[in-house]
């Protein structure tokens, strides 16, 4: 049902309607006015924004750019397009090992660590306040101090090591096991230590989320027929702390993919037969030892996209909690 307007009417309409250019000008003028009004706010944000842009945003952009070049810090970068990526995936066997180890570590320590955080936070929340404060400190202390070096005493390869001595005394083993030097035991040991360190920021966030839930909801739930603590957890507690669940997931994922220094402090770099070689180690190797900056940037860029993808995936999963 379209009517064909007369030419006079269209001309009049064209006069009334501002052109696209005029619209843009108006929009810009309005934004400029708003910005001038917010001058003080910009002044407040400026110092942080400068630091954030210089040390976070710009490096990410440079990293993506450098990943398409070869660069050794002395000569200017030479553009090679996707050669670095081709080499990484097709020719660099160690990189495939690193990806495997990283994904293995992340898929074990990430979800398990996350669930441990949630479980301990939930249990702690049932305790009286004083007791809760003490236990919180006890559980958070490992992540707080990052004291992974202690484990070199425990997993020490001679009979003086705590674990070896216990196993020897119970005659479960005859000779001490070289926990930190044997390629078969390295990865399990690393996983245990990362677990021990895993009750970190997300753990605190969960405790906080649990304490923020209105008690009346539980009473209302009991009247509505919730019978035990498990139903309470699924139907009331978790949906109420969704924001903390999201935040905790981001912290856990970012942490579990970025594990590097903890592993190095335990089993050294490179680890025995590269058994605990992660993407972070590969990056360190090319970036700080071999100075192949373009290649290292390609590794960093891949790690960057893996982290972002994992985060987005898990967030879309968590949105379904309690629905």
């Amino acid at each position, binding site marked *: 049902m379209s009517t064909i307007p007369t030419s006079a009417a269209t001309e009049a309409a064209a006069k009334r309607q501002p052109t696209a250019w005029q619209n843009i000008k108006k929009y810009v003028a309005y934004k400029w006015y708003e910005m001038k009004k917010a001058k003080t*706010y910009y002044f407040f944000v400026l110092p942080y924004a400068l*630091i954030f842009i210089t040390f976070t945003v710009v490096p990410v952009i440079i990293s993506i750019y450098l990943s398409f070049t070869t660069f050794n810090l002395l000569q200017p970068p030479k553009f090679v397009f996707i050669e670095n990526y081709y080499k990484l995936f097709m020719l660099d066997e160690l990189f495939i090992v690193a990806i495997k180890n990283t994904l293995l570590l992340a898929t074990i320590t990430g979800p398990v660590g996350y669930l441990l955080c949630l479980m301990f936070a939930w*249990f702690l929340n049932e305790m009286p306040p004083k007791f809760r404060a003490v236990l*919180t400190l006890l559980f958070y202390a490992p992540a707080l*101090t990052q*004291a992974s070096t202690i484990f070199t005493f425990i997993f020490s390869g001679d009979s003086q090591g705590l674990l070896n001595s216990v196993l020897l005394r119970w005659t479960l083993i005859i000779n001490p096991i070289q926990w930190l030097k044997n390629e078969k035991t390295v990865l399990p040991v690393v996983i245990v230590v990362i677990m021990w360190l895993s009750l970190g920021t997300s753990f605190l966030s969960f405790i906080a989320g649990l304490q923020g839930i209105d008690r009346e909801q539980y009473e209302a739930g009991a009247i509505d027929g919730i019978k*035990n603590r498990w139903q309470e957890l699924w139907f009331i507690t978790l949906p109420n702390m969704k924001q903390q669940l*999201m935040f905790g997931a981001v912290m856990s994922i970012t942490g579990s993919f970025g594990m590097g220094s903890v592993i190095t402090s335990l089993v050294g770099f490179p680890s025995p037969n590269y058994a605990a070689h992660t993407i972070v180690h590969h*990056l360190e190797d090319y970036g700080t030892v071999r100075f192949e900056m373009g290649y290292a940037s390609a590794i960093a860029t891949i790690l960057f996209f893996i982290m972002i993808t994992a985060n987005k995936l898990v967030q879309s999963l968590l949105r379904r909690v309690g629905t």
Partner: protein
Amino acid sequence: MAAKAMAEKQHKVRRFHFFTQKAGSRVNRSLSGDLGVLIFLLITGALMAIPMVFAIVQSLKPSDELFMFPPRLYVRNPTSQNYADLFRLMSGSWIPFSRYIFNTVMITGVGTFGHIIIASMAAYPLAKYVFPGSKAFSKMVVFSLMFNATVTTIPGYIVMATLGWIDTYWSLIVPAFGMTLGLYLMQSFMSDLHDSLFDAAKIDGAPEGVIFWRIVMPNVKSAWLTLMIFSVQSLWNVNNGMYIYSEPLKTLPYAISQIVSGGIARAGASAAASVIMMIVPIVVFIISQSNVIETMAKSGLKE
């Protein structure tokens, strides 16, 4: 009928909740379940604590006990010899030990203080007002929580070199000012402040700077303490990174790692060293614990 059943349930609740009573009496809890949770927490808590207790015990052992087989989880003749050894080893080094301590304390102190001020300054307008670019900036900050600083080490070095900050304190301190987690937590905490707090001051014509210092900052003390614990935790363990080369600028964790790498002869001293490194973050956390929980309660990831 229903009312009677409910009343019975309420009664049960009161009878069986002697140890959750203080936290506010709760429904749907059985005594056996509560005891189970308690026992579970105590056992896992003990397991979590073993490595730390072991480190403390090791640091107090005289050398004959240190190398005894099998190693014990307790000490017979506690001694402070290991700590004395540690300081003797340290003072024998080329750079006085106090220099390393000064470096770490200075970096931690200045970095934390600056981080709290700069992050709060940015958080206040981002949390309370909408202006062109504010939403985009907040989104960028949340996005940056999703990756780790390791991915930017190489370009980070190039940026530092361009600024001429290689081998200066700045290279460790200034990036710490810009920690994203801090801004994020502060912003979430501030957006929960009630607008009526500022309205009166605004009507009286107070400039934003005054509102920020006199009204906003005193109201977000728990958030400061939270930023403090996260900042101290990361800066206290800073191990030179890639940016520091000259010995007088190096930090305590570096100095201690040099001692520890001395091997078996220094087992006692290295245990003492790891205990010393643990103390500071733990003390800071004990001071700020309840505030940290309060801040985290207000900062979920809103979607």
